[in-house]
């Protein structure tokens, strides 16, 4: 009962954060709301006993992604208040979002979710996940890291090109 109440509260926080991201006019507020929403998602994972995924969510999204976002906002000196909240692409964006929502819901409903209860060994899940990552999903895993490497080199090249010969 109380667990369900906590789950509901975490869910409300997550959704409220997500609404805040799109509703606020300040980009920094949007980043803070995003952090709230992402940590809320980690809380949802935690309530569903997926400790490892929850911590990975906090590590990657709560720490790293939010920092990169805030850094980008501060270094590019983006104006704090956006002058215009929306433009003519509104119907298109609504359609895209609705399509994505349908797609995700359909996937979520059609996937046979494996569940675990609190008594099962969390370490076994952890081990199974890492074994899968380094066997069946090794190539996608490595490709993801390659994408990050390319992005990193691209960022270095882009920032260096301005001061050639310096």
């Amino acid at each position: 009962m109380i667990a369900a109440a906590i789950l509901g509260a975490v869910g409300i926080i997550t959704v409220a954060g997500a609404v805040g991201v799109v509703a606020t006019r300040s980009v920094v507020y949007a980043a803070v709301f995003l952090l709230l929403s992402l940590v809320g998602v980690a809380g949802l994972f935690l309530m569903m006993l997926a400790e490892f995924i929850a911590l990975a969510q906090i590590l990657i999204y709560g720490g790293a992604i939010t920092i990169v976002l805030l850094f980008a906002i501060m270094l590019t000196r983006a104006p704090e208040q956006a002058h215009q909240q929306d433009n003519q692409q509104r119907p298109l964006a609504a359609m895209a979002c609705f399509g994505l929502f349908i797609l995700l819901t359909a996937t979520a409903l059609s996937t046979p979710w494996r569940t675990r209860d609190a008594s099962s060994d969390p370490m076994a899940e952890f081990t199974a996940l890492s074994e899968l990552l380094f066997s069946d999903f090794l190539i996608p895993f490595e490709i993801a890291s390659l994408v990050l490497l390319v992005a990193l080199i691209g960022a270095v090249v882009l920032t260096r090109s301005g001061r050639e010969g310096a």
Partner: protein
Amino acid sequence: MTLLDLITIAVIVFVLFNGVLTVVLGVIWAERKALARLQQRVGPSRTGPSGILQTAADAVKLMLKEDVRPGSVNRLIFYLAPLLIFTPIFMLWMVLPFSSGLILSDLDIGLFYVVAILGLSVVGHVLAGWASNNKYALLGSARNAAQLISYELPLVFAVLAVGLLAQTATDRPFSLAGIVEAQGGVPYLLIMPLGFALFLVGALAETARIPFDIPHAEEEIVGGAFVEYSGIRWGVFFLTEYAGLATMAFLAAILFLGGWNGPFSDQFPPLQPLYLILKISAIILLVFWIRAPLPRLRIDQLMAFAWKLAIPASLVNLVVVATVVYAQQRNDWELWLAGGIISVVSIALAVVTGFIIQRRREQRLNQFRQRWAQ
């Protein structure tokens, strides 16, 4: 989960919170005393015996002080930032084991929890700098973020190597209690001195201690992110710094010094917290000792040290530990040979890379010198 559980949790959190605050008061007093001794001064001596109540008096003073908020700050984020900075450090104390029986939450992946939560406090620092609407504060928070991101990597790699080592002696290698039990014989400081050194450097940088206090740098940027804060909000920053120091020393004692293990600690469990406190105090004193004689690094030296030395060294440490652990588990001489070759090659690669980087740096410095001479 019942209502009673919730109340119990609330009481535990309240007790732990006040415990952390008391520890911080003690650490601040110890630092002022130790630093004074190292500098041939007396240190606090008037408030209570040996000035032991000095920090408590300072805390009361900070709480009573007027909370000045400059008019140009972003009020919401300005007030939010100190909380965002302190909360992660406090959350770390939830998984720290005090003895084999006294663990609030013995997570199976406690090591990963520590790493994940540690990264969160950067957000608060960056927000504090931004919300203050002050150039020095923004510079301080930018420095802080750069430093925390850079030194998190050697720290995490050193911690990962500990997990790998613990795997040989326990079936819960990522639980902090499991790691301590795995060090029953030999503490990992003796097996992996490089890992301990990297962890200590990373911890000093994460807590922005001298010689890594570049984010504060009172003489350059007048205190960094907390320059606009006053009263108890400034106190929260100060508190976080020392709580972070205590947490890092705690982690170092658990991960590298064998935690609560010591002579007769298995027969006499009450001895365990005592050993742990002794080890933590030793590390905290070491940090004070490092602080006393060293000057502050320059920001480029700090970054160069992280990316050219600490991160490659931590990777080498990880590879060597991984190969040795693997070979030892299989107990196969061919694997020992392969592990040896991989270790030697990775060390050689690290040395050669460092050498090339150093030479290119010197070449570029020479180019600058020639241009200046013209």
